[in-house]
């Protein structure tokens, strides 16, 4: 009975969305058909042209200097500059989740051992690969304004390096400094915002020069913020992994 009801509700939901996708938009704006979006009707037109402050010049890769956000990756310019408050909120979500996991599970001295015994080949190889993963993570978030990726995937890959080390070695625990790194990086992000408030008048405003579009040292505070976020996310996810493998902890 419950299953039939669930199927009915799921199907109802599906059909409701299908009708809105097919709605006729003759005299009013409906959802455009897949692929037929007119970007000029959306706010994104100004994000692409980097003309929110009414700058009408064309942006050329490697040539234009002092553009609005200066970042070649437009998604990054939205995430870290135009809608930076959302990213601060996102960082906070991850932070509070990691804190919650720590409160519920953490604090155990012993570690949960793995059931399978790992061969020495894997152990040695992972000690070589894990640092490579960490460097890859660092590369991704440092180049967040030039290539796809940014702080969050970069931090996640760094945590994957840590996870690899944890998976092959039964004695591995997190480094002591991870919590400090996480908290300090979060504090740094809020301080960058407050610095923007005190220097330029709005919270999280870009107060560094934006350089030439496409170079490594460009885009003002964007690489700084993404590095901060990358380190924070890496430390946070490693902390979550560490909490999950710890045994004992608070029996509440």
């Amino acid at each position, binding site marked *: 009975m*419950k299953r039939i*009801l*669930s*199927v009915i*509700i*799921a*199907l109802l*939901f*599906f059909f409701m*969305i*299908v009708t809105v*996708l097919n709605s006729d938009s003759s005299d009013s704006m409906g*959802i455009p058909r*897949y*692929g*037929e*979006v007119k*970007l000029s009707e*959306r706010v*994104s037109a100004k*994000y*692409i*042209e*980097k003309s929110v402050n009414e700058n009408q010049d*064309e*942006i*050329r*890769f*490697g040539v234009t200097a002092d553009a609005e956000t200066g970042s*070649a*990756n*437009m*998604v990054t310019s*939205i*995430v870290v500059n135009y*809608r930076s408050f*959302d*990213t601060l*909120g*996102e960082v906070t*979500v*991850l932070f*509070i*989740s*990691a804190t*919650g*996991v720590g409160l*519920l*599970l953490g604090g155990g001295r012993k570690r949960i051992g793995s059931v399978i015994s790992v061969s020495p080949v894997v152990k040695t190889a992972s000690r070589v690969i894990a640092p490579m993963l960490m460097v890859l993570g660092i590369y991704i978030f440092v180049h967040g304004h*030039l*290539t*796809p990726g940014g702080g*969050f995937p970069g931090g996640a890959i760094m945590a994957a390096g840590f996870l690899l080390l944890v998976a092959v070695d039964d004695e591995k625990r997190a480094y002591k400094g991870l919590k400090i790194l996480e908290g300090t990086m979060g504090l740094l992000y809020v301080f960058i915002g407050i610095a923007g408030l005190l220097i330029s008048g709005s919270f999280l405003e870009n107060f560094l020069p934006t350089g030439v*579009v*496409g170079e490594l040292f460009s885009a003002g505070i964007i690489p700084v913020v993404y590095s901060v976020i990358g380190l924070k996310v890496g430390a946070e996810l490693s902390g*979550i992994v560490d*909490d*999950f493998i710890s045994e004992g902890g608070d*029996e*509440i």
Partner: protein
Amino acid sequence: MIQYFSMMLVAAGLYGLLSQKNLVKLIISLNIAEIGVNLFIVSIGYVEGGAAPILSSVSNNSSLLFVDPLPQALVLTSIVIGVGVTALALSLIVSVSKSRGTIDISELSSGGGDRE
């Protein structure tokens, strides 16, 4: 087409959420539904023939046709939020299973006491 597939994913996730009893399966259904919603949001921004919204030596000026970058930014945030909620939910499951000994939601709701 992809919009219909993503909605089917969401519908499948909703079905799982409504009918499953195992706590871990509930989390999996939630994740499936979240993936469906994220896919749908990205598909809202597709422009036929548009390039990926990154200025590079290939697509090197901003007057070319680009895909809408805003939904991608929204999805970035949404994925991370999903990760956070999943981590918290899993740790709650571990905590509950340690003290109650079961991860079946019908057994938990009928109130029982703590194990030992």
